C-alpha cells in the first residue's frame, strides 16, 4: 500500500479545514478551537492540524493534512512539508494584504518549492476582486516559479477537486520524465 500526502497551508480563515472536510471520505480529524482573535472573521481556528484521507480502489491512500494558519505554528509547517508530495497554499483575498501572505508562504517553503509541486488557491475573489489572480501569478513569477493559481470557493467540492487535480497533474509531470528543469533564478 502506498500513501501520498498533500499539505494544505495558507492564511488564517482561508478555508483549509473546510477544503479538507469537503473531500475527505470520513469526518476529518480536526483540532479547531474557538477563535478569540477578533482580527480574523472566523468562528473557529485550527490549533493543531487537520487530517483526512481518501482510500483508492487499489488500497492506496491519499492523505490530506491541514496546517494551522497562524505563523506561531510555522515549526509545524516545516515538519509537515517534509513528507508531503505536494502543497496547496490557500489565500484569502479579503485579508488586508493577501500578496504579503503569499510572499510569506513562498518564503517559508522556499527550500522545498523548487522540487515540491505546489498550487495556489485564492478565496473570496467574488467579493474582493483585487488583487487579481494575474497579480498573484506575477508575484510567483518574480520568485522564478509558475505555480497554478485558481480562484476557489473551498465550500464547493468541485473547486477543491480542481486544486487537488492540478496538484496531482503536477506530481504526475514530475514522475513522467527525468529531465526536470532546475528552478530559475528569481529576478
Amino acid at each position: 500500500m502506498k500513501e501520498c500526502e498533500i499539505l494544505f497551508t495558507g492564511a488564517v480563515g482561508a478555508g483549509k479545514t473546510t477544503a479538507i472536510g469537503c473531500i475527505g471520505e470520513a469526518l476529518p480529524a480536526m483540532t479547531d478551537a474557538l477563535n478569540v482573535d477578533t482580527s480574523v472573521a472566523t468562528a473557529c481556528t485550527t490549533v493543531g492540524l487537520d487530517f483526512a484521507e481518501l482510500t483508492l480502489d487499489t488500497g492506496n491512500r491519499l492523505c490530506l493534512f491541514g496546517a494551522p494558519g497562524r505563523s506561531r505554528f510555522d515549526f509545524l509547517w516545516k515538519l509537515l512539508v517534509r513528507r508531503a508530495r505536494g502543497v496547496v497554499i490557500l489565500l484569502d483575498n479579503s485579508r488586508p494584504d493577501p500578496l504579503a501572505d503569499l510572499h510569506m508562504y513562498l518564503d517559508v517553503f522556499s527550500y522545498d518549492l523548487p522540487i515540491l509541486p505546489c498550487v495556489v488557491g485564492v478565496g473570496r475573489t467574488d467579493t474582493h476582486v483585487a488583487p487579481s489572480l494575474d497579480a498573484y501569478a506575477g508575484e510567483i513569477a518574480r520568485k522564478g516559479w509558475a505555480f497554478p493559481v485558481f480562484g476557489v470557493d473551498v465550500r464547493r467540492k468541485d473547486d477543491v477537486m480542481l486544486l487537488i487535480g492540478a496538484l496531482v497533474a503536477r506530481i504526475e509531470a514530475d514522475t513522467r520524465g527525468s529531465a526536470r528543469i532546475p528552478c530559475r533564478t528569481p529576478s
Partner: protein
Amino acid sequence: MQISAEFRDSEGSVCESHFRRRDRWSHTEHFVDMPDAGRQGVRAFERAGVSSLRLGVCKLPEAEVAVIRTIIQLYATDGTFAWTLVGESPYDALLVDASVTQAESSELTHMVSSMRVFSWEESSKRVHALERPIRADRLKRWLDDTELALRQAQSSEMVADEQSMMKVEVSNSVRFMLLRWPSALLLRNDLDKVHMAILLSQRALNAIELADISGLPLSQCIAFIQVLRVAGALELHVTPGAMARSQEAGEFKALRRGGFGRSFINGFRRRLGLGEP
C-alpha cells in the same frame, strides 16, 4: 518583393516602375508572378481589413507626378483603394522614369535592394506595363494588380511563417516552459488548457512531448503553445541536436519506468472523479 513596370510615350521613351514589398517578418525580398486565379478572392479577403500601401515616384517630370497624385486622390475616395502617394521611403512600389542613368539605376537598385527592369519590348507584353501618356484606368489596373501580388506574397509568407513556427514547436531541440501562470482570460477555465499549462509549468516540453504526456491531440498542444508564445508566457530551452536526441532517449526511458507509479496517480484520478489521462 519588387515588381517593375514601364511608362512609355509615343516616341518610345519609357518610365520604369519598381515595386517592393516591405517585408515585416523576414527582411527578405522576392519576385512574384501574378497568377490570375484567385485574385478576386484574395482582394476581397485583404480588403476586409485594408491597410495602406505606399507608392513613391523617382525622376518623373513634375507634371506626371501631379497627374499621378490627382488620379490617386480621386480613387482614394473609394474606401477600398489601398494606395497613397508618399514622398519618402519606405515604399511598397516605386515608379521610376526609364531615362535614369545606369549609375542612378544602380543607386536605386541599392536602395530598393533588388530591382527588375523590363525592356521596352518585354514591357509591351506585360500586364503591368505602363505607357505614356498616363491614363487613369491603366494606372488603376496596374496598381490593383500590384496590390494583389503584394498581398499574395504577404499571405504566402505568413503561411510559411506559421509552418516555420510549427516546426519550432515540434522540434526535438527546442522545448518550452512556462515563465508564469497564464492569465485566467487565456485559460478560460478550460480543463485541457489547465492541464497543459500545469505540465509546462513543471518541465520544459515540446508539442510532441506535451501531447504524449497529456494525452491531448497534437494539434491542440501546438495551438496552445502558439497562444502562450504570443502572450509571452513561455521561455525557450534550446538543446543542441545530439544532446536533444540523448535527452529525448532519457525522457522516454523515464516514461516507461513510471517513477512514482502511474497506477497510483490514476487511482487518485478515479477516486476524485478526475478521469484518467
